[in-house]
């Protein structure tokens, strides 16, 4: 299956990247791992809505400054956009501090895809079924958008504008993802429903973050749902139903119910809207329990 024709360049530095983006405004696309972009450029059996045909591909694979997982003392973890998913999977820092993110990336694609794909690529591809977006959203992550010698910082929610559309101007690029420092009383979880156990496009996925206070009170909660809308969404009503409540079987069940009514998923080749709704409820309930059990293992929290 061939690719259409295009020009190719591989900058070695960020300044070079920014120059290229400026010069080729609107005609260039960044090539990271290629596991989404090249499939979309091939056409083949893809949904016509996602086909791409950029005139220029800018390969960021050699830009060292766009790779790495950094722990910024007390200021959270920064993952540069060009970091391979496999690196995130292998990172003991991520596994220890952000277990749910580690878990989410283990579901992404296959070992080959994880070795090729990047976090930035997954975010910019903006698939409604992305494995990384819901957990990053739930963790309250922010994205650094750069370009033209300037930077801005926005939430994941703000970044995703519409179905496969992100807030990136023609001369901008996603530089890094910042996941805030996690308080001891916080726990997170990622769950997904798949038809088979590898290389899947999720039917439903859930990223969840929970902050508790004494006596099992829910101080704060963020629930992000994927594959149920054109872009992953926050289940704000479900969050509200649990926030400031005691976490119990009943309140968990209520949150699940509310979340399932909050979504308006579609029927597609993988599943029906009704099944997705049911799964939202189950996964939200399980995710709350899983996030809670992570916190419960800690001795002291405020």
């Amino acid at each position, binding site marked *: *299956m*061939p690719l259409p024709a295009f020009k190719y360049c591989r900058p070695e530095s960020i300044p070079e990247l920014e120059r290229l983006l400026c010069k080729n405004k609107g005609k260039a696309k960044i090539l990271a791992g290629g596991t989404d972009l090249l499939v979309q450029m091939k056409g*083949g*059996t893809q949904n016509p809505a996602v086909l791409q045909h950029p005139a220029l591909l800018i390969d960021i694979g050699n830009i060292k400054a766009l790779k790495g997982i950094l722990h910024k003392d007390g200021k959270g973890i920064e993952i540069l956009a060009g970091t391979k998913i496999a690196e995130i999977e292998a990172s003991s820092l991520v596994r220890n501090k952000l277990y749910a993110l580690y878990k989410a990336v283990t579901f992404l694609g296959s070992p080959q895809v994880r070795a090729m794909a990047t976090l930035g690529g997954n975010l910019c591809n903006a698939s409604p079924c992305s494995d990384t977006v819901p957990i990053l959203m739930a963790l309250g992550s922010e994205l650094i958008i750069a370009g033209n010698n300037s930077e801005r910082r926005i939430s994941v929610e703000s970044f995703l504008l519409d179905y496969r559309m992100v807030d990136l101007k023609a001369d901008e690029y996603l530089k890094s993802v910042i996941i805030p420092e996690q308080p001891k009383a916080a726990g997170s979880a990622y769950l997904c*429903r798949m*038809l*088979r*156990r*590898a*290389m899947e*496009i999720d039917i439903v996925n859930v990223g969840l973050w929970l902050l508790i206070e004494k006596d099992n009170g829910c101080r704060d909660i963020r629930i992000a749902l994927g594959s149920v809308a054109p872009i992953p969404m926050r289940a704000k009503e479900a969050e509200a139903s649990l926030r400031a409540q005691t976490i119990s079987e009943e309140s968990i069940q209520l949150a699940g119910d509310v979340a399932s009514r909050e979504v308006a998923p579609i029927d597609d*080749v*993988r*599943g*029906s809207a009704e*099944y997705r709704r*049911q*799964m939202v409820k*189950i996964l939200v309930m399980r995710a709350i329990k899983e996030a809670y059990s992570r916190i419960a293992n800690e001795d002291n929290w405020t």
Partner: protein
Amino acid sequence: MNTNRKKYDFSVIGTRVPRKDARDKATGAVQYTDDLKMPGMLIGKIKRSPHAHARIHSINTKKAQSHRGVKAVLIGSEAPTAYGIMPQLPTEFALAVDKVRYVGEGVAAVAALDAKSALEALDLIEVEYEPLTAYLTPEEALQDTSIPLHMDNDGKPFRFYEAKQHFGDVNQAFSRSAFILERTFSTQNVNHVFLEPHSALAKFDGAGKLTIWSPTQVPHYLHRTLSLVLDMPMQKIRVILPAVGGGFGGKSEVAASELCAALLARKSGRPVKLTFERDEVFFTNKGRHPMHLKVKIGVDEGGMIQAIDFDTLMDGGAYLGWGIVVMFYCAAMIHLPYRVENLRFHGRRVYTNKPTCGAMRGLGGVQPRFAIESMLDEIALELNIPPYEIRRMNSVESGHTTALNNYVRHAEYKKCLDRVVKRSGFLEKHKKLPFGKGIGLAGGHYSSGTAYTLYLAYKPHSSAIVRVEPESGVSVYCGAAEIGQGSDMVLGMMAAETLGISFEDVQVYSGDTGITPFDLGSFSSRVTVACGQAVKNAATEITKQLFGVAAVALSIQGEQLVARDGKIFSQYEKHKSLDFWDAVKKYIAAYGPLTASGHYTPPRRSAKGKVQGGKIGHSPTYGFTAQVAEVEVDTETGEVRLLKMTESGDCGQAINPMSVEGQVEGSIVMGMGQALFEEMVFKGNSLLNPNLHEYRIPTMMDMPEIDSEIVESYDPESPYGAKECGEGPIQPVIPAILNALYDAIGIRFTELPVTPEKIMAALAGQKKENSIE
């Protein structure tokens, strides 16, 4: 693992030798068709119809022809001769002639200097279509009286093939039955998904002789069809198999890749290679027929089957292919592995505007097996008989003749049931596991050696030639198609055993119509028995010649001689021995070249009463298997985990146990795919998922624990006691899993695949019922 080696004292048969081509496959040295290159080779591509049913008014190829890189353009009317795997019923064309009948059907083809030029040229071909009403389902196609897909020889609309069979007196048998169960079942379109897409490389030499390389399972039928469609004598055509990346029945018919490559090669005067993309493999299909089944089984109060009434509505897709054979195989498959004296069969295979269905591993058997094994379980429950008992009491034994006059000369089905139940702990677990966990039993059989030839011919079904000379060694020539199933190895082992030499010293040449003698091909699990017997016969002839020479050299009577360990010696006085190669040299010096041929045709059975369905389903012998599946259901999400499959199989004497295990393990995972994941999904008449991310075959993460076993068995009339193991083991997989699901959550699923959604919907229904009670 019981190999029977000691019992029968074989030296080669029953050993776990690695295949000879394994090394080259492990290093990437082996060449599949798309790996081949030739000087001047062009690349072929096919333009496909976007319509499910349309008349072709015109095809304008002028622009394509003037593309710089294009050397030949082809349209259907240049090869208007219809063909089909059943020669007396040809319905297919190399490229559509006058009409297209499914989305993805080929309408034109080009040969160009490279793939890029070929694809550009396809876009330049202008086709004017007049869309016609398209039929998605058999029900639609049967009801609608507007334009049918096909016409018969009298120009009348032809919508479906029909078969009716009646044995014994079904109505009478039902009226005396103590319990009758009626159920309907529905199965889906599944595809073989062999990893290697169809491909063909065709070349004409200066004398007008065509050589074609293609991963076909049926070199003879390809040979024959090329002659027909290209209108040239068979003797000027040679079919050669490179390595084949899987077939499973999907390469057991001629494909457009082969015909178009040959036609383009002739037109351009250059070699042409045409390889499909994965979506083209799906459009070509020839996968398993969806069946809508209505089955009625009557039993006496003890559980003995009195009668079966079986109705199938088959969705054939746009053309015929193996279709009728599948229908008659389905009819035949109901007669075993249980005794059924009274049986009524009604089948209809209907044309619809979708990719054609054909032969897929276990053809004609998987769907009825699903229905009958599920129903036996339900009947057993109703009568309070263990599922194991009801099968055992109805099981056939060696020497059974079915109502269809199939002679089952050898059967160890009871042993398979006994062993699998014991090893899996079925009796201890069935009905005793907590809600959500379940265990299920099912059994099956398959033909081995098959008597059916697809067209009436009196010559041997398989032949082999063995040639022995010191300079080139031992060469076995057999037309059998090595498609990755290990047939070369099996035939080589049989030759080695017969000649008393090591497997290392035998070279097998197969799948080349220019060198190897006629063979029907690799389908219906016929190779081990049919080609094996031909090879054994030829090798036996060689040993007879050598014994003649050795008897003289050793001054003893020929009957005393045996061949083993590279020697020919007296079984009574081992020191009276001659080295194999010495005997060969002596023979050749005295008599000239040492060669022999052997052939095999399944025994003719006289018509006992009414013979129905031709010879389809008849087979010299049959393999049997029983399986136990253990599942776990997440009752909140509907996710099914297939935890374990235990299998006990009767393949007669396993020629190579490692290979048998490989067939069993592969069959189980393939069957699991159809039970739980796989489905070709259509929206309107377009295939939504002609790719491997939305058409899901099981991955390593999905596979169950597999514990398989070869039961002690030996069919004395088969070459070295062997029977099939390639298509039998897939038969019980689906019902074993579905019976386990019933045990787990109390729901009988009658529609495939059983997806988590269907499980959740069924559980919700069950909850409702329970709360009403």
